[in-house]
């Protein structure tokens, strides 16, 4: 079987939807800029690209049609490069990486650009025309359950108190803040132009937040609940991209390989506790890799909510010291379709930076799913 490797990772700065610096930027333009950045950074010959896979959770409006194809045009990829938009909600761009790895294994191409995009400013969650199936809603109300409600459900099921969630949120901000100040994020960020301004740093990280400040917030989804805006990932605008190639191609072209893809997994779970989706998906992937969680050195667990991150950490027995070294989504932001490529690319980059062997990237997915990727240093 042909091995697939991650040979490059970049992303845009992440900013709050609505009030942030990227609100006025079209998502297709944002993704185009990030892909150009990836091409420049890796020096790849664009003619060799088989397919542009773009993950997007709400592919409509400016993210609509087959936005991957349009982003290909915007990024000046040759017209011979194909393009597909992939939707697995928050797992969309990680799914792109999985699809690329599968194609490589089948010998169906050597070079894939696996990107993700979400402008939550410009395309609302639920889309412009939410039209849930009334009969399904009747039969299985959780099919359309709001994400905040699932976070409350998980908090209740795992008896996670508010303080624990706030401690995780604070830790996420502290790590992200230190990483930004230490210049450890600059490497992955492609500055993007919005009008006449260039935006080159993240906008969601709160350097100054404290447990007291977090404790002062009102519950965001259930007036009697424990989940607040401070313990949830913010609505975010952002784009990300990974270069996924066959190991042979990377070697032949001298690409700076970050890691190879060792195993993957997806799994479903009850939609009302979608936040624990990573548990089953990770167990599958670990089994396929022949590893245990103790073997993993670097973990990127997407913090959709502090409650679900804590629940997954508990069930999977994750060592917090290995997790989200440069901060997680609560601090950095969570542009739905773009997160999967971020946490996979980030894990690959961290393996290299930290000189470790195995990484695991995983995330929960609305509707009740999880997705996991295990990488190995080369």
């Amino acid at each position, binding site marked *: 079987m042909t091995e697939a490797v991650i040979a490059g990772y970049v992303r845009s700065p992440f900013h709050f939807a609505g009030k942030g610096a990227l609100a006025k930027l079209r998502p297709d333009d944002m993704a185009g800029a990030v892909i150009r950045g990836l091409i420049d950074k890796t020096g790849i010959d664009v003619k060799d690209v088989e397919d542009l896979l773009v993950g997007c959770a709400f592919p409509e*409006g400016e993210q609509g049609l087959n936005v991957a194809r349009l982003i290909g045009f915007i990024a000046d990829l040759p017209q011979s490069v194909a393009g597909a938009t992939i939707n697995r909600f928050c797992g969309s761009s990680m799914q792109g990486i999985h699809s690329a790895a599968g194609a490589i294994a089948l010998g169906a191409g050597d070079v894939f650009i696996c990107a993700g995009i979400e402008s939550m400013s410009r395309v609302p969650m*639920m889309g*412009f*025309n*939410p*039209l*849930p*199936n*009334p009969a399904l*809603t009747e039969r299985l109300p959780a099919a*359309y359950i*709001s994400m*905040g*409600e699932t976070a409350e459900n998980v908090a209740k099921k795992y008896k996670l108190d508010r303080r624990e969630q706030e401690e995780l949120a604070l830790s996420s901000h502290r790590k992200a803040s230190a990483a930004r100040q230490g210049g450890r994020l600059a490497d992955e960020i492609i500055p993007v132009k919005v009008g006449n301004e260039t935006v080159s740093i993240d906008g969601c990280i709160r350097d100054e937040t404290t447990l007291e400040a977090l404790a002062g917030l009102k*519950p*965001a*989804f*259930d*007036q009697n609940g424990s989940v607040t805006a401070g313990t949830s990932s913010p609505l975010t605008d952002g784009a990300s991209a990974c270069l996924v190639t066959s190991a042979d191609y990377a070697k032949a072209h001298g690409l700076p390989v970050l890691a190879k893809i060792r195993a993957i997994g997806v799994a479903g779970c009850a939609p009302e506790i979608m936040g624990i989706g990573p548990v089953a998906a990770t167990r599958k992937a670990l089994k396929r890799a022949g590893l245990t969680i103790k073997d993993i050195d670097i973990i990127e667990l997407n913090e959709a909510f502090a409650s679900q991150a804590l629940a997954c950490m508990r069930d999977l027995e994750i060592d917090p010291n290995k997790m989200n070294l440069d901060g997680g989504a609560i601090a950095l932001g969570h542009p739905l379709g773009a997160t999967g490529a971020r946490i996979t690319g980030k894990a690959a980059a961290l393996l290299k930076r930290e000189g470790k062997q195995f990484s695991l990237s995983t995330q929960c997915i609305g509707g009740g799913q999880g997705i996991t990727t295990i990488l190995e240093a080369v």
Partner: protein
Amino acid sequence: MAATTTGAPIRKACVIGAGVMGSGIAAQIANAGIPVLLLDIVPKDAANRNAIAEGAIAKLLKADPAPLMSSAAAKLITPGNIDDDLDKLAEVDWIVEAVIEKIEIKQALYRKLMDKRQPGSIVSSNTSTIPLAQLTEDLPEAFARDFCITHFFNPPRYMRLLEVVGGPKTDSAQIERIAAFGDIALGKMIVRGKDTPGFVANRIGVYWMQAAIIHALDLGLTVEMADAIMGRPIGAPKTGIFALLDLVGLDLMPHVDASLAASLPAGDPYLSIRRDFPLLTKMIAEGYTGRKGKGGFYRLNTEGGKKVKESVDLRTGAYAPSTAARLDSADAAKGGLRVLVTHPDAGGQYAWRVLSGMLSYAASLVPTIADDIVAVDQAIRTGFNFKRGPFEMIDELGAAWLAEALRKENRPVPDFLAMAAKAGSFYKVENGRLQYLGLDGSYRPVERPEGVLLLRDIKLASKPILKNGSASLWDIGDGVACLEFHSKMNAIDPDTLTLMKQSLDHVGKNMKALVLHNEADNFSVGANIGLALFAANIAMWPMIDDLIGQGIAVYKAIKYAPFPVVGAPSGMALGGGCEVLLHCAAIQAHSETYIGLVEVGVGLIPGWGGCAEMLIRYQPQSAKEPKGPMPPVAQAFETISLAKVAKSAAEAKQLRFLRRDDGITMNRDRLLADAKAKALALVAAGHQPPKPAELRLPGPSGKTALTLAVDGFVAQGKALAHDRAVSLTLAEALTGGATDMTEMIGEDQINKLAKQGFMKLLRSEPTLARMEHMLSTGKPLRN
């Protein structure tokens, strides 16, 4: 703007001084759609040289009531500073100076901008205390020619008065130019004052305040008693005197008093009533500067976790829990001013002392401060929000009666008052026209500026074409009729609907166009829910059903009339009062119009076509807006379910209660004329009624989406149980019931769904409880 101004247009303005007044004036200029520079000094050692002006703009955006009418207006204000930005004056047509009241600072500023401003630009000062003659002393002729005083009242958006004062050197064309701009673009009542201390409004208004304070002290009244008389009973705002001081700031009074006293001529009656008020000095020193400080004559004591309203004892200065004033005279005042001032209790004596002094003072000041009594009355009405000006108050008392009462007390009777006593009154109506008494003893008509058409003038001169207890139809000339509501709070009841129908018939047969307009504070607060509640309580469902059906039919007749119906609202236009506007061919709204569909507050949904009309208004207007069946539904749902009320006509456009080509009139007095012109323009353009709308609505899937959203709000504690019931009923109507997105649905069907929902809600206990609560308390019940 609908009307044109006199002279070269004012396309760009600059306000120097970004304090409360300066920034408020800049905001009102921006509200008029005119770009404005807002400059202040560079603060010492500042990193940001525009910090003061930028801070002022940030405050404008937060202030309540809002000085800005829309977010778009805020963008028209450009901050700057007087060190770096005076070159920009080369493009400015009007410079307003609103800096500190120190003559040397003002003059230094004038010298600084003298060479920078473009020739012919107007420079005006917002001074309230420094005479124009002093301001322009030693300044070049060319500057003095373009210089005048434009004195705004606080807050500039909401206070209608603008005093314009020129000096002997001021070019009268410049005065006309700024007066026209102030009137038409800024919407102000222009009063031309003379260069005398306090100009017009403050000269009399400050006397009133001073008199109200000292007589309250002399008579040993409590602050509650004083305010109970000095408010509504005399036709002043309900804050009376002490609550008014709390509102404007206690520290303002000593400044105003000192500057007025310093500049008044010897022997002026004001000088004889002013005196030290040690309690005021003490309170200011202790930080009791009014609502902006720790409190004032009233304060809210929150010690011990409870909120207790307290007031100051005017003798001891100690706070004690506030007690309501019990004065027979305050109630008796409903019988008229004379009943009040002749009432034997302390309130009656107080009213007499204050008013007799103030009214004779006013009568002694014409023509010193203004050419005629009309200007003085307008100044007090619009500058101090009195219901009547001093001369109108004298007429209510009776000029002869007042003169006689003064004589009995051996007090001087001003000559002009004696003249009015002899002639009978200061105003009279002759040949259907309002006349006022001139200084020569003859009456002359009150002239309205060109472009001002007032229903009250028409009503003096003619009889209504149609009339019943709730509405009247008037002929306003050129084939245009005006339908006036005049029920209590202009609530819409069966009589209103009947007269609407009769008016449509009449205009259809005999005239060209119809305008819906009235001069009450509020266009209409909506349907008469008292009547609906009464009918519901005795289970007269067919009657209510019929009333809703009638409303739908009449509003539909307005929409499909073969002639244009133009809505011309000012103030609140809520619920059924909003819905009638939504059916008009066009709207010409006063800038201070507050439109909203607020039915959910009483547990109902719009039943007179509001649902369908909002869906039509939210259809995509450009390719940029998202397509599909849900976006218009989601927007209408948000606007109606949250009972959003636009805080200005500009905001009503953003919320789409007004359409893009609907007009906005800044000056209320020009509204009827503008609406009439709009109606005639539609006639000239060959007005055709619209084709009935057909909409593609999402049906049950859309309702499911809205249900999920509402359940989220309930979980968050943002919506209560009955909010959910009302919202889902609204959702049913807005999503088109059982329709499918492959089908088109007509507005009649939507109206039918809304009516069904309305009737269903009206039969529910929580809705009836909401209605009862609203009627008894004026506030919405949360259940």
